[in-house]
C-alpha cells in the first residue's frame, strides 16, 4: 500500500465510523504505525481546507464535521438539536467533576455551597458524567468522573485543554 492509498483508507475509515476513531484504532485496523496515521490525518485535514468539511479531534478521536461558518445554513435543515445547553448549575457541577475527578457528591456540594443532586442527575442522564466506583470509607459514596461524551459535547481533546489559571491559588 502506498502512502497515497493509505491516506484514502484513513479518510474512508474516519468518515464511515459511527464514533470518533483514534489514531491507534485506525493503526490497528490498517496495521500501520499510529504516528504515521496522525501525519496522514494532518494531510487529509489540509486537503479539506477549501471544502465544507474538516476533521475534528474530540476525546482523542477523529471525526468529520462541517465547518463552523456553515452553521447558519445547516440549521435550516431542521436537524434536531442533539443537546440543549446545560443549566448554570449543571455546568458548574461538570466543571468541578472535570477537575476533581474522581469526586463525590459531598465534595462537589462543599465547593458549590449548595445541594447538587439534581445537577448530578441531569449530567448522568445526558451521559456527560459517569460513576467511577465507590470511595473507601464511611458510607462508601459514589465517585463521579466525566464520560467520553463530555469531550464530544464541548469539542475537547483532553482535560489538559481546560483552563489552569488560578488553580494554584487554592490547590
Amino acid at each position, binding site marked *: 500500500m502506498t502512502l497515497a492509498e493509505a491516506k484514502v483508507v484513513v479518510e474512508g475509515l474516519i468518515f464511515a465510523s459511527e464514533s470518533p476513531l483514534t489514531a491507534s484504532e485506525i493503526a490497528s485496523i490498517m496495521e500501520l504505525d499510529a504516528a504515521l496515521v496522525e501525519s496522514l490525518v494532518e494531510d487529509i485535514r489540509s486537503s479539506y481546507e477549501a471544502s465544507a468539511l474538516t476533521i475534528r479531534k474530540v476525546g482523542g478521536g477523529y471525526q468529520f464535521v462541517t465547518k463552523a461558518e456553515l452553521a447558519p445554513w445547516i440549521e435550516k435543515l431542521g436537524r434536531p438539536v442533539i443537546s440543549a445547553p446545560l443549566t448554570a448549575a449543571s455546568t*458548574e457541577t461538570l466543571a468541578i467533576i472535570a477537575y476533581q475527578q474522581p469526586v463525590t457528591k459531598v465534595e462537589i456540594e462543599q465547593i458549590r455551597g449548595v445541594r447538587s443532586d439534581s445537577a448530578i442527575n441531569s449530567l448522568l442522564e445526558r451521559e456527560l458524567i459517569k460513576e467511577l466506583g465507590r470511595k473507601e470509607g464511611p458510607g462508601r459514596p459514589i465517585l463521579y468522573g466525566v464520560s467520553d461524551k463530555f469531550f464530544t459535547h464541548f469539542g475537547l481533546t483532553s482535560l489538559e485543554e481546560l483552563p489552569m489559571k488560578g488553580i494554584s491559588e487554592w490547590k
Partner: protein
Amino acid sequence: MGYVIELDVYQGPFDLLLDLIAQNEVDLWDIPIATITEQYLEYLYSLQEQDLAITGEFLLMAATLIRIKSRLLLPQDPLPEESEEDQEDPRTELVEQLIRYKFFKEVAQFLDNRYAEASKHFTRGQALESLDLTPLYTNPFGDVTLEALGELYCQLLAELEKEQPLHRITGKISLPERLALVRLQLVGQPRATFSDLLRDNSAAEIVVTFLAVLELVRLGEIMLVQTESFGQIDVQPLQLEVEVRP
C-alpha cells in the same frame, strides 16, 4: 419547611456573595464584612417580601457572615489558652471557599463557550449501512508452528492407537484417598509432574487428582509451576517448617 426553591438569579450563597463583592468593587482578600453582611441580608429580606422561598444554604451563609462580623468586632484580648490558629482572620476560610468557587464558575463559562463553538460543527447526518460485527483477530495463528501441528497430530494418532480396553471397571475415587495418595507419592521427591501422579488417566482420576493437588496448594504443602500454556504442570513439595520444641 418552606426552603424549597433555589434562587433563580444566583446559584447559591457563594454566587450571591461574589456578586456583592464585585458590585462593591472591593478586594476579595479584604472584604468589608459589615457592609457585605448588611447587603446580603437586605437581599434575603427583599426576596421574602416577594414571597420567594429561601433555601437553607442562604440562611446558613447569613449565620456564617454574622458570626464572622461579630468575631471581627470582638476586642483583641485573647484568652491565654487560645492558640495562634484561633487568632487567624475569621474571613480566611470563607475567602478561600469563594476563590475556589469563583474558579469553577469561570471554568463553567469556558465550557459554555466551548459548547457554543462545538455546536456549530455538524457531524455526518446519515448512518452508513450496518457494519459487520464478527471479531477481528489480529493474530489468528497465535504462535502455532507447522511443526507443532504435525507433532500434535502424531500424538493424537498415538492416543488413538492405544488399545481400547474391552471392559472398563471404574471405582469411585474419593478426594481424601487421593489426597493421601498424592502426599505419599511426593514423599522425598523434589518435584513431580502432574501426569506422574496419575495411574490410569481416566477422566475421573484426572479430575480428583487435580482437586487433590489444588487442595494441597491451598494447604501450602506444594506449589505448582507451569512454564508455558498447556505445558507440563510441575508439582513441587514445599519445605515444611517444623517447629521443634524442647
